[in-house]
Protein backbone atom coordinates (compact mmCIF):
# COMPACT_ATOMS: atom_id res chain seq x y z
CA UNK A 1 0.00 0.00 0.00
CA UNK A 2 1.33 3.40 -0.95
CA UNK A 3 2.07 5.92 1.75
CA UNK A 4 0.26 9.25 2.02
CA UNK A 5 3.24 11.29 0.75
CA UNK A 6 3.59 8.95 -2.24
CA UNK A 7 -0.08 9.40 -3.07
CA UNK A 8 0.23 13.17 -2.69
CA UNK A 9 3.22 13.16 -4.98
CA UNK A 10 1.29 11.21 -7.63
CA UNK A 11 -1.69 13.48 -7.20
CA UNK A 12 0.47 16.59 -7.63
CA UNK A 13 1.61 15.12 -10.93
CA UNK A 14 -1.97 14.80 -12.11
CA UNK A 15 -2.98 11.34 -10.93
CA UNK A 16 -6.56 11.96 -9.75
CA UNK A 17 -7.05 8.41 -8.48
CA UNK A 18 -4.39 9.09 -5.85
CA UNK A 19 -6.59 11.86 -4.48
CA UNK A 20 -9.52 9.43 -4.28
CA UNK A 21 -7.40 7.06 -2.25
CA UNK A 22 -6.40 9.84 0.13
CA UNK A 23 -10.03 10.84 0.60
CA UNK A 24 -11.06 7.26 1.32
CA UNK A 25 -8.22 6.86 3.78
CA UNK A 26 -8.85 10.03 5.79
CA UNK A 27 -12.50 10.97 5.38
CA UNK A 28 -13.76 9.10 8.45
CA UNK A 29 -11.04 10.53 10.71
CA UNK A 30 -11.61 14.10 9.55
CA UNK A 31 -15.36 13.73 9.72
CA UNK A 32 -15.20 12.54 13.31
CA UNK A 33 -12.76 15.30 14.18
CA UNK A 34 -15.26 17.92 13.01
CA UNK A 35 -18.25 16.01 14.36
CA UNK A 36 -16.87 16.29 17.87
CA UNK A 37 -16.44 20.02 17.36
CA UNK A 38 -19.89 20.79 15.95
CA UNK A 39 -22.05 17.73 16.83
CA UNK A 40 -23.82 18.03 13.52
CA UNK A 41 -23.11 15.51 10.76
CA UNK A 42 -24.13 17.75 7.85
CA UNK A 43 -21.94 20.56 9.06
CA UNK A 44 -19.09 18.16 9.87
CA UNK A 45 -19.30 16.76 6.33
CA UNK A 46 -19.26 20.27 4.91
CA UNK A 47 -16.10 21.12 6.84
CA UNK A 48 -14.49 17.81 5.87
CA UNK A 49 -15.21 18.51 2.21
CA UNK A 50 -13.71 21.97 2.64
CA UNK A 51 -10.45 20.37 3.86
CA UNK A 52 -10.28 18.02 0.88
CA UNK A 53 -11.18 20.85 -1.45
CA UNK A 54 -8.28 22.94 -0.15
CA UNK A 55 -6.00 19.93 -0.43
CA UNK A 56 -7.10 19.49 -4.04
CA UNK A 57 -6.70 23.14 -5.02
CA UNK A 58 -3.30 23.52 -3.32
CA UNK A 59 -1.83 20.14 -4.16
CA UNK A 60 1.46 21.65 -5.34
CA UNK A 61 2.09 23.28 -1.97
CA UNK A 62 2.50 20.02 -0.04
CA UNK A 63 6.07 19.28 0.91
CA UNK A 64 6.64 15.83 2.35
CA UNK A 65 8.77 17.17 5.21
CA UNK A 66 5.99 16.86 7.77
CA UNK A 67 3.77 13.87 8.30
CA UNK A 68 0.78 14.00 5.97
CA UNK A 69 -1.73 13.67 8.83
CA UNK A 70 -0.18 16.72 10.46
CA UNK A 71 -0.54 18.64 7.20
CA UNK A 72 -4.13 17.49 6.74
CA UNK A 73 -5.22 18.38 10.26
CA UNK A 74 -3.48 21.71 10.02
CA UNK A 75 -5.76 22.45 7.08
CA UNK A 76 -8.59 21.13 9.25
CA UNK A 77 -7.68 23.50 12.05
CA UNK A 78 -7.60 26.43 9.61
CA UNK A 79 -11.02 25.46 8.25
CA UNK A 80 -12.33 25.30 11.80
CA UNK A 81 -10.93 28.73 12.66
CA UNK A 82 -12.42 30.16 9.46
CA UNK A 83 -15.74 28.60 10.36
CA UNK A 84 -15.63 30.12 13.86
CA UNK A 85 -14.86 33.55 12.43
CA UNK A 86 -17.54 33.25 9.78
CA UNK A 87 -20.23 32.25 12.22
CA UNK A 88 -19.08 34.31 15.18
CA UNK A 89 -22.22 36.42 15.28
CA UNK A 90 -24.70 33.66 14.63
CA UNK A 91 -23.28 30.96 16.89
CA UNK A 92 -24.96 30.37 20.18
CA UNK A 93 -24.64 27.77 22.88
CA UNK A 94 -26.62 24.68 21.99
CA UNK A 95 -28.57 23.01 24.69
CA UNK A 96 -28.43 19.25 24.89
CA UNK A 97 -32.16 19.28 25.42
CA UNK A 98 -32.93 21.56 22.47
CA UNK A 99 -34.85 19.56 19.88
CA UNK A 100 -34.27 19.53 16.15
CA UNK A 101 -36.97 19.58 13.49
CA UNK A 102 -37.55 15.85 14.05
CA UNK A 103 -38.06 16.29 17.75
CA UNK A 104 -34.73 14.72 18.72
CA UNK A 105 -32.36 16.34 21.18
CA UNK A 106 -28.64 16.68 20.56
CA UNK A 107 -27.88 14.16 23.28
CA UNK A 108 -30.20 11.62 21.63
CA UNK A 109 -28.71 12.27 18.21
CA UNK A 110 -25.20 11.66 19.49
CA UNK A 111 -26.18 8.63 21.55
CA UNK A 112 -27.86 7.14 18.49
CA UNK A 113 -24.49 7.21 16.74
CA UNK A 114 -22.78 5.29 19.51
CA UNK A 115 -21.14 2.07 18.44
CA UNK A 116 -23.15 -0.13 20.75
CA UNK A 117 -26.71 -0.50 19.42
CA UNK A 118 -27.81 -1.89 22.77
CA UNK A 119 -27.55 1.53 24.36
CA UNK A 120 -29.30 1.66 27.66
CA UNK A 121 -30.85 4.71 29.20
CA UNK A 122 -27.91 4.95 31.53
CA UNK A 123 -25.47 4.80 28.69
CA UNK A 124 -27.33 7.49 26.75
CA UNK A 125 -27.21 9.67 29.80
CA UNK A 126 -23.49 9.15 30.06
CA UNK A 127 -22.98 9.81 26.35
CA UNK A 128 -24.98 12.99 26.66
CA UNK A 129 -22.87 14.04 29.62
CA UNK A 130 -19.68 13.32 27.68
CA UNK A 131 -20.92 15.40 24.74
CA UNK A 132 -21.82 18.23 27.06
CA UNK A 133 -18.46 17.99 28.82
CA UNK A 134 -16.48 18.10 25.56
CA UNK A 135 -18.65 20.94 24.28
CA UNK A 136 -17.95 22.96 27.41
CA UNK A 137 -14.17 22.81 26.92
CA UNK A 138 -12.44 25.99 25.75
CA UNK A 139 -11.68 25.78 22.02
CA UNK A 140 -7.93 25.39 22.41
CA UNK A 141 -8.34 22.57 24.95
CA UNK A 142 -11.00 20.93 22.84
CA UNK A 143 -8.81 20.85 19.74
CA UNK A 144 -5.91 19.27 21.61
CA UNK A 145 -8.16 16.77 23.33
CA UNK A 146 -9.97 15.67 20.17
CA UNK A 147 -6.77 15.38 18.15
CA UNK A 148 -5.24 13.25 20.88
CA UNK A 149 -8.14 11.18 22.10
CA UNK A 150 -10.24 10.77 18.98
CA UNK A 151 -7.68 11.03 16.19
CA UNK A 152 -4.95 9.32 18.15
CA UNK A 153 -2.32 11.91 17.26
CA UNK A 154 0.80 11.96 19.42
CA UNK A 155 1.63 15.07 21.42
CA UNK A 156 4.45 15.87 18.99
CA UNK A 157 2.09 15.66 16.01
CA UNK A 158 -0.48 17.84 17.74
CA UNK A 159 2.27 20.33 18.50
CA UNK A 160 3.15 20.51 14.79
CA UNK A 161 -0.49 20.61 13.72
CA UNK A 162 -1.47 23.45 16.01
CA UNK A 163 1.93 25.12 15.93
CA UNK A 164 2.32 25.16 19.71
CA UNK A 165 5.04 23.71 21.97
CA UNK A 166 4.73 20.11 23.13
CA UNK A 167 4.65 21.36 26.73
CA UNK A 168 1.56 23.39 25.92
CA UNK A 169 -0.07 20.35 24.35
CA UNK A 170 0.64 18.38 27.52
CA UNK A 171 -0.70 21.13 29.74
CA UNK A 172 -3.86 21.63 27.66
CA UNK A 173 -4.49 17.91 27.61
CA UNK A 174 -4.22 17.81 31.38
CA UNK A 175 -6.63 20.73 31.83
CA UNK A 176 -9.05 19.19 29.33
CA UNK A 177 -9.09 15.86 31.18
CA UNK A 178 -9.44 17.66 34.49
CA UNK A 179 -12.41 19.67 33.29
CA UNK A 180 -14.03 16.62 31.73
CA UNK A 181 -13.71 14.76 35.01
CA UNK A 182 -15.24 17.61 36.93
CA UNK A 183 -18.02 18.05 34.41
CA UNK A 184 -18.82 14.35 34.25
CA UNK A 185 -18.71 14.14 38.01
CA UNK A 186 -21.20 17.01 38.30
CA UNK A 187 -23.46 15.80 35.48
CA UNK A 188 -23.74 12.25 36.70
CA UNK A 189 -23.97 13.11 40.37
CA UNK A 190 -26.99 11.48 41.99
CA UNK A 191 -27.43 8.98 39.16
CA UNK A 192 -25.88 6.27 41.32
CA UNK A 193 -22.60 6.77 39.54
CA UNK A 194 -23.47 5.25 36.17
CA UNK A 195 -20.59 6.95 34.43
CA UNK A 196 -18.22 5.29 36.83
CA UNK A 197 -20.00 1.98 36.33
CA UNK A 198 -19.94 2.44 32.59
CA UNK A 199 -16.27 3.21 32.75
CA UNK A 200 -15.72 0.05 34.74
CA UNK A 201 -17.87 -1.91 32.34
CA UNK A 202 -15.87 -0.87 29.29
CA UNK A 203 -12.54 -1.55 30.99
Amino acid at each position, binding site marked *: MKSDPELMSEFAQGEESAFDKL*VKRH*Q*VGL*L*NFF*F*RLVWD*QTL*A*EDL*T*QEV*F*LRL*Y*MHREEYEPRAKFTTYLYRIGRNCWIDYLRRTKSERKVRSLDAQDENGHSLAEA*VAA*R*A*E*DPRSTVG*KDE*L*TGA*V*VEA*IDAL*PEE*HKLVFIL*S*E*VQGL*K*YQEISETLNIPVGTV*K*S*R*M*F*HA*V*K*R*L*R*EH*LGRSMKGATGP*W*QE*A*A*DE*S*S
Partner: protein
Amino acid sequence: MDEQLQEDLVALAKGELEPARQAELEALAESDAAVREELEQIRGTLRAVQRIGVVEPSAEFRVTLEKRIRDSVAHKERSGRMQRPGSTAMRLPGVVSPGARESASRIDAQSVSESARAARPGSLSVRLAERRETGSPFAWLRYVALAAAMVLVTLTLSHFLAFPAVAPEHPSATEVAMKRWVERKDAPRWDRVLRGDTLELVEVPDGTELVLMPHLKTDAREECLVAYTPDQIEALRSNPALNAQQLEAALARSFKATVEGGTVALPPLLRARHLGDSGAPVVVLRCPGRFELWSEPVLRRYLRDEPRMEAVPAPAADLPETPPGVPSTGKAPAEDDRA
Protein backbone atom coordinates in the same frame (compact mmCIF):
# COMPACT_ATOMS: atom_id res chain seq x y z
CA MET B 1 -1.84 16.33 44.53
CA ASP B 2 0.90 18.19 42.70
CA GLU B 3 -0.30 19.54 39.35
CA GLN B 4 2.89 18.46 37.58
CA LEU B 5 2.33 14.91 38.80
CA GLN B 6 -1.28 15.00 37.58
CA GLU B 7 -0.12 16.30 34.19
CA ASP B 8 2.38 13.44 33.98
CA LEU B 9 -0.30 10.92 34.96
CA VAL B 10 -2.45 12.08 32.04
CA ALA B 11 0.58 11.70 29.77
CA LEU B 12 1.16 8.25 31.27
CA ALA B 13 -2.43 7.23 30.53
CA LYS B 14 -1.90 8.46 26.97
CA GLY B 15 1.41 6.61 26.60
CA GLU B 16 3.26 9.87 26.04
CA LEU B 17 5.91 9.65 28.73
CA GLU B 18 9.56 8.89 28.30
CA PRO B 19 10.38 5.32 29.41
CA ALA B 20 12.29 6.39 32.53
CA ARG B 21 9.54 8.68 33.81
CA GLN B 22 6.92 6.09 32.87
CA ALA B 23 8.64 3.42 34.96
CA GLU B 24 8.99 5.86 37.83
CA LEU B 25 5.29 6.75 37.83
CA GLU B 26 4.18 3.15 37.45
CA ALA B 27 6.23 2.24 40.49
CA LEU B 28 4.71 5.18 42.35
CA ALA B 29 1.20 4.05 41.41
CA GLU B 30 2.00 0.58 42.75
CA SER B 31 3.05 1.91 46.11
CA ASP B 32 0.75 4.93 46.53
CA ALA B 33 -3.01 4.34 46.64
CA ALA B 34 -3.84 8.00 45.96
CA VAL B 35 -1.74 8.05 42.80
CA ARG B 36 -3.23 4.74 41.70
CA GLU B 37 -6.75 6.13 42.26
CA GLU B 38 -5.92 9.30 40.34
CA LEU B 39 -4.58 7.28 37.41
CA GLU B 40 -7.71 5.13 37.37
CA GLN B 41 -9.91 8.22 37.39
CA ILE B 42 -8.03 9.61 34.41
CA ARG B 43 -8.28 6.33 32.52
CA GLY B 44 -11.99 6.11 33.37
CA THR B 45 -12.57 9.58 31.95
CA LEU B 46 -10.73 8.72 28.74
CA ARG B 47 -12.72 5.50 28.41
CA ALA B 48 -15.98 7.39 28.87
CA VAL B 49 -15.08 9.63 25.94
CA GLN B 50 -14.60 6.59 23.73
CA ARG B 51 -18.31 5.82 24.13
CA ILE B 52 -19.14 8.33 21.44
CA GLY B 53 -19.37 6.20 18.35
CA VAL B 54 -17.66 6.68 15.01
CA VAL B 55 -19.65 8.65 12.43
CA GLU B 56 -19.53 7.39 8.84
CA PRO B 57 -19.83 9.71 5.82
CA SER B 58 -23.28 9.88 4.26
CA ALA B 59 -23.99 8.47 0.80
CA GLU B 60 -23.93 11.99 -0.71
CA PHE B 61 -20.57 12.90 0.78
CA ARG B 62 -18.40 11.93 -2.20
CA VAL B 63 -20.86 13.24 -4.78
CA THR B 64 -21.01 16.62 -3.07
CA LEU B 65 -17.24 16.74 -2.70
CA GLU B 66 -16.72 16.03 -6.39
CA LYS B 67 -19.23 18.73 -7.33
CA ARG B 68 -17.53 21.27 -5.08
CA ILE B 69 -14.17 20.43 -6.62
CA ARG B 70 -15.58 20.77 -10.16
CA ASP B 71 -17.15 24.13 -9.29
CA SER B 72 -13.94 25.42 -7.70
CA VAL B 73 -11.80 24.33 -10.65
CA ALA B 74 -14.22 25.97 -13.09
CA HIS B 75 -14.26 29.16 -11.04
CA LYS B 76 -10.47 29.22 -10.91
CA GLU B 77 -10.24 28.77 -14.66
CA ARG B 78 -12.72 31.60 -15.24
CA SER B 79 -10.75 33.86 -12.91
CA GLY B 80 -7.52 32.94 -14.68
CA ARG B 81 -8.95 33.89 -18.07
CA MET B 82 -10.12 37.25 -16.80
CA GLN B 83 -6.74 38.16 -15.50
CA ARG B 84 -4.77 37.36 -18.64
CA PRO B 85 -2.94 40.46 -19.88
CA GLY B 86 -4.51 41.91 -23.01
CA SER B 87 -7.90 40.37 -22.33
CA THR B 88 -11.04 42.47 -22.52
CA ALA B 89 -11.12 42.88 -18.76
CA MET B 90 -7.64 44.36 -18.79
CA ARG B 91 -8.43 47.01 -21.40
CA LEU B 92 -9.50 49.76 -19.09
CA PRO B 93 -11.00 52.96 -20.46
CA GLY B 94 -8.52 55.81 -20.67
CA VAL B 95 -5.48 53.57 -20.61
CA VAL B 96 -3.39 53.54 -23.77
CA SER B 97 -0.74 50.91 -24.14
CA PRO B 98 2.80 52.07 -24.94
CA GLY B 99 2.68 50.33 -28.28
CA ALA B 100 -0.47 52.13 -29.30
CA ARG B 101 0.98 55.50 -28.32
CA GLU B 102 4.10 54.92 -30.41
CA SER B 103 2.14 53.90 -33.43
CA ALA B 104 -0.20 56.92 -33.13
CA SER B 105 2.78 59.25 -32.93
CA ARG B 106 4.31 57.61 -35.94
CA ILE B 107 1.17 58.09 -38.03
CA ASP B 108 0.77 61.72 -36.92
CA ALA B 109 4.34 62.49 -37.78
CA GLN B 110 4.09 60.79 -41.14
CA SER B 111 0.81 62.60 -41.93
CA VAL B 112 2.73 65.90 -42.12
CA SER B 113 4.37 65.47 -45.43
CA GLU B 114 7.87 66.51 -46.32
CA SER B 115 6.57 69.09 -48.82
CA ALA B 116 4.41 70.72 -46.11
CA ARG B 117 7.43 70.98 -43.88
CA ALA B 118 9.41 72.66 -46.61
CA ALA B 119 6.57 75.09 -47.45
CA ARG B 120 5.74 76.07 -43.84
CA PRO B 121 8.85 75.41 -41.78
CA GLY B 122 7.70 77.28 -38.64
CA SER B 123 4.04 76.36 -38.66
CA LEU B 124 2.35 74.79 -35.64
CA SER B 125 1.62 71.48 -37.35
CA VAL B 126 5.25 71.12 -38.38
CA ARG B 127 6.49 71.98 -34.92
CA LEU B 128 4.06 69.46 -33.34
CA ALA B 129 5.11 66.80 -35.81
CA GLU B 130 8.76 67.47 -35.02
CA ARG B 131 8.05 67.32 -31.32
CA ARG B 132 6.30 63.96 -31.69
CA GLU B 133 9.29 62.64 -33.58
CA THR B 134 11.84 63.84 -31.09
CA GLY B 135 9.67 63.54 -27.98
CA SER B 136 8.76 66.33 -25.61
CA PRO B 137 11.57 67.39 -23.24
CA PHE B 138 8.94 67.52 -20.45
CA ALA B 139 7.35 64.13 -21.13
CA TRP B 140 8.65 62.82 -17.80
CA LEU B 141 6.49 65.37 -16.00
CA ARG B 142 3.43 63.36 -16.93
CA TYR B 143 4.85 60.31 -15.15
CA VAL B 144 5.75 62.36 -12.10
CA ALA B 145 2.22 63.76 -12.00
CA LEU B 146 0.76 60.27 -12.39
CA ALA B 147 2.95 58.89 -9.59
CA ALA B 148 2.04 61.82 -7.31
CA ALA B 149 -1.65 61.24 -7.96
CA MET B 150 -1.29 57.55 -7.14
CA VAL B 151 0.54 58.34 -3.90
CA LEU B 152 -2.15 60.86 -2.99
CA VAL B 153 -4.94 58.37 -3.63
CA THR B 154 -3.11 55.65 -1.66
CA LEU B 155 -2.53 57.94 1.30
CA THR B 156 -6.14 59.09 1.29
CA LEU B 157 -7.45 55.54 1.16
CA SER B 158 -5.06 54.31 3.84
CA HIS B 159 -6.09 57.19 6.09
CA PHE B 160 -9.71 56.14 5.96
CA LEU B 161 -8.92 52.45 6.20
CA ALA B 162 -6.45 52.77 9.06
CA PHE B 163 -8.65 55.01 11.21
CA PRO B 164 -12.10 53.53 10.93
CA ALA B 165 -12.71 54.45 14.54
CA VAL B 166 -13.94 57.85 13.36
CA ALA B 167 -17.11 55.90 12.75
CA PRO B 168 -17.67 54.35 16.19
CA GLU B 169 -20.32 52.00 14.89
CA HIS B 170 -17.87 50.45 12.38
CA PRO B 171 -17.92 46.72 13.15
CA SER B 172 -14.18 46.22 12.73
CA ALA B 173 -13.11 49.23 14.75
CA THR B 174 -12.08 47.06 17.69
CA GLU B 175 -10.00 44.76 15.55
CA VAL B 176 -8.23 47.69 13.92
CA ALA B 177 -7.64 49.27 17.30
CA MET B 178 -6.25 46.00 18.62
CA LYS B 179 -3.93 45.73 15.64
CA ARG B 180 -2.60 49.22 16.21
CA TRP B 181 -2.14 48.40 19.85
CA VAL B 182 -0.28 45.19 19.23
CA GLU B 183 1.99 46.82 16.67
CA ARG B 184 3.34 49.13 19.35
CA LYS B 185 6.45 47.51 20.72
CA ASP B 186 5.98 48.95 24.19
CA ALA B 187 2.31 48.02 24.46
CA PRO B 188 0.95 45.36 26.75
CA ARG B 189 -0.05 42.28 24.82
CA TRP B 190 -3.67 41.97 23.86
CA ASP B 191 -4.87 38.60 25.03
CA ARG B 192 -8.53 38.11 24.20
CA VAL B 193 -11.96 39.65 24.23
CA LEU B 194 -14.10 38.41 27.07
CA ARG B 195 -17.85 38.40 26.72
CA GLY B 196 -19.04 36.50 29.77
CA ASP B 197 -18.25 36.76 33.45
CA THR B 198 -15.48 34.17 33.42
CA LEU B 199 -11.83 34.93 32.82
CA GLU B 200 -9.70 31.99 31.64
CA LEU B 201 -6.29 31.87 33.28
CA VAL B 202 -5.10 28.33 32.69
CA GLU B 203 -1.53 29.33 33.44
CA VAL B 204 -2.38 30.44 36.98
CA PRO B 205 -2.54 27.49 39.42
CA ASP B 206 -5.91 26.58 40.84
CA GLY B 207 -6.56 27.96 44.29
CA THR B 208 -4.60 31.15 43.60
CA GLU B 209 -6.37 34.13 45.08
CA LEU B 210 -6.34 37.07 42.67
CA VAL B 211 -6.66 40.64 43.82
CA LEU B 212 -8.92 42.73 41.61
CA MET B 213 -8.85 46.48 41.81
CA PRO B 214 -9.57 49.44 39.56
CA HIS B 215 -6.69 50.70 37.46
CA LEU B 216 -4.89 53.25 39.55
CA LYS B 217 -3.25 55.49 37.04
CA THR B 218 -5.62 56.10 34.17
CA ASP B 219 -8.37 58.59 33.57
CA ALA B 220 -10.61 55.61 32.91
CA ARG B 221 -9.95 54.03 36.30
CA GLU B 222 -13.62 53.39 36.78
CA GLU B 223 -13.72 51.36 33.58
CA CYS B 224 -10.59 49.27 33.89
CA LEU B 225 -9.77 46.51 36.36
CA VAL B 226 -6.37 45.02 37.18
CA ALA B 227 -5.91 41.43 38.39
CA TYR B 228 -2.79 40.68 40.46
CA THR B 229 -1.57 37.37 41.87
CA PRO B 230 -0.38 37.34 45.51
CA ASP B 231 3.25 37.21 44.30
CA GLN B 232 2.71 40.34 42.27
CA ILE B 233 1.14 42.09 45.25
CA GLU B 234 4.19 41.19 47.31
CA ALA B 235 6.41 42.56 44.55
CA LEU B 236 4.45 45.81 44.64
CA ARG B 237 4.76 46.00 48.42
CA SER B 238 8.50 45.50 48.29
CA ASN B 239 8.93 48.17 45.60
CA PRO B 240 10.47 51.19 47.38
CA ALA B 241 9.32 53.51 44.59
CA LEU B 242 5.70 52.99 45.54
CA ASN B 243 3.79 54.95 48.14
CA ALA B 244 3.10 52.14 50.61
CA GLN B 245 0.30 53.94 52.37
CA GLN B 246 -1.63 54.63 49.18
CA LEU B 247 -1.01 51.09 47.95
CA GLU B 248 -2.39 49.57 51.15
CA ALA B 249 -5.40 51.87 50.95
CA ALA B 250 -6.07 50.67 47.43
CA LEU B 251 -5.63 47.03 48.46
CA ALA B 252 -8.09 47.50 51.30
CA ARG B 253 -10.70 48.50 48.73
CA SER B 254 -9.83 45.60 46.39
CA PHE B 255 -11.80 42.44 45.68
CA LYS B 256 -10.62 38.84 45.86
CA ALA B 257 -11.37 36.06 43.39
CA THR B 258 -10.03 32.50 43.42
CA VAL B 259 -8.83 30.60 40.33
CA GLU B 260 -10.77 27.36 39.96
CA GLY B 261 -10.42 25.00 37.06
CA GLY B 262 -8.26 27.50 35.21
CA THR B 263 -10.94 30.21 35.39
CA VAL B 264 -11.91 33.12 37.55
CA ALA B 265 -15.50 34.21 37.99
CA LEU B 266 -15.59 38.00 38.06
CA PRO B 267 -17.72 39.30 40.92
CA PRO B 268 -20.92 40.45 39.14
CA LEU B 269 -21.14 43.75 40.98
CA LEU B 270 -17.51 44.58 40.26
CA ARG B 271 -17.93 43.72 36.61
CA ALA B 272 -21.15 45.69 36.31
CA ARG B 273 -19.61 48.70 38.01
CA HIS B 274 -16.34 48.89 36.09
CA LEU B 275 -16.83 46.94 32.89
CA GLY B 276 -20.49 47.14 31.99
CA ASP B 277 -23.08 44.38 32.13
CA SER B 278 -22.19 40.74 31.48
CA GLY B 279 -22.95 41.02 27.75
CA ALA B 280 -20.59 43.96 27.20
CA PRO B 281 -17.26 43.00 25.62
CA VAL B 282 -14.18 43.27 27.79
CA VAL B 283 -10.64 43.31 26.42
CA VAL B 284 -8.11 41.32 28.43
CA LEU B 285 -4.56 42.64 28.26
CA ARG B 286 -1.66 40.50 29.38
CA CYS B 287 0.80 42.85 31.04
CA PRO B 288 4.05 42.24 32.89
CA GLY B 289 3.01 41.25 36.39
CA ARG B 290 -0.72 41.55 35.92
CA PHE B 291 -3.79 41.20 33.72
CA GLU B 292 -5.82 44.24 32.83
CA LEU B 293 -9.48 44.13 31.98
CA TRP B 294 -10.73 47.05 29.94
CA SER B 295 -14.20 47.98 28.93
CA GLU B 296 -13.94 47.58 25.16
CA PRO B 297 -15.47 50.99 24.25
CA VAL B 298 -13.14 52.71 26.71
CA LEU B 299 -10.05 51.04 25.31
CA ARG B 300 -11.18 51.89 21.82
CA ARG B 301 -11.69 55.51 22.85
CA TYR B 302 -8.19 55.60 24.30
CA LEU B 303 -6.68 54.21 21.15
CA ARG B 304 -8.64 56.60 18.99
CA ASP B 305 -8.78 59.85 20.93
CA GLU B 306 -5.96 59.85 23.42
CA PRO B 307 -3.09 61.71 21.74
CA ARG B 308 -0.73 60.88 24.60
CA MET B 309 -0.98 57.22 23.70
CA GLU B 310 0.99 57.86 20.57
CA ALA B 311 3.62 59.77 22.53
CA VAL B 312 4.49 57.00 25.00
CA PRO B 313 8.20 56.36 24.41
CA ALA B 314 9.69 52.91 24.04
CA PRO B 315 10.80 51.75 27.49
CA ALA B 316 14.43 51.24 28.35
CA ALA B 317 15.59 47.65 28.06
CA ASP B 318 15.72 47.12 31.81
CA LEU B 319 12.27 48.53 32.54
CA PRO B 320 8.95 46.71 32.24
CA GLU B 321 6.44 47.75 29.62
CA THR B 322 4.41 50.90 30.09
CA PRO B 323 0.83 50.27 31.18
CA PRO B 324 -1.89 51.41 28.79
CA GLY B 325 -3.31 54.88 29.18
CA VAL B 326 -0.26 56.14 31.02
CA PRO B 327 0.98 59.49 29.81
CA SER B 328 4.61 59.95 29.02
CA THR B 329 5.73 61.22 32.40
CA GLY B 330 9.27 59.92 32.34
CA LYS B 331 8.70 58.23 35.71
CA ALA B 332 9.65 54.65 36.31
CA PRO B 333 6.77 52.42 35.19
CA ALA B 334 6.55 50.89 38.66
CA GLU B 335 5.26 54.25 39.85
CA ASP B 336 2.35 53.96 37.49
CA ASP B 337 0.79 51.43 39.77
CA ARG B 338 0.75 53.88 42.59
CA ALA B 339 -2.59 55.29 43.60
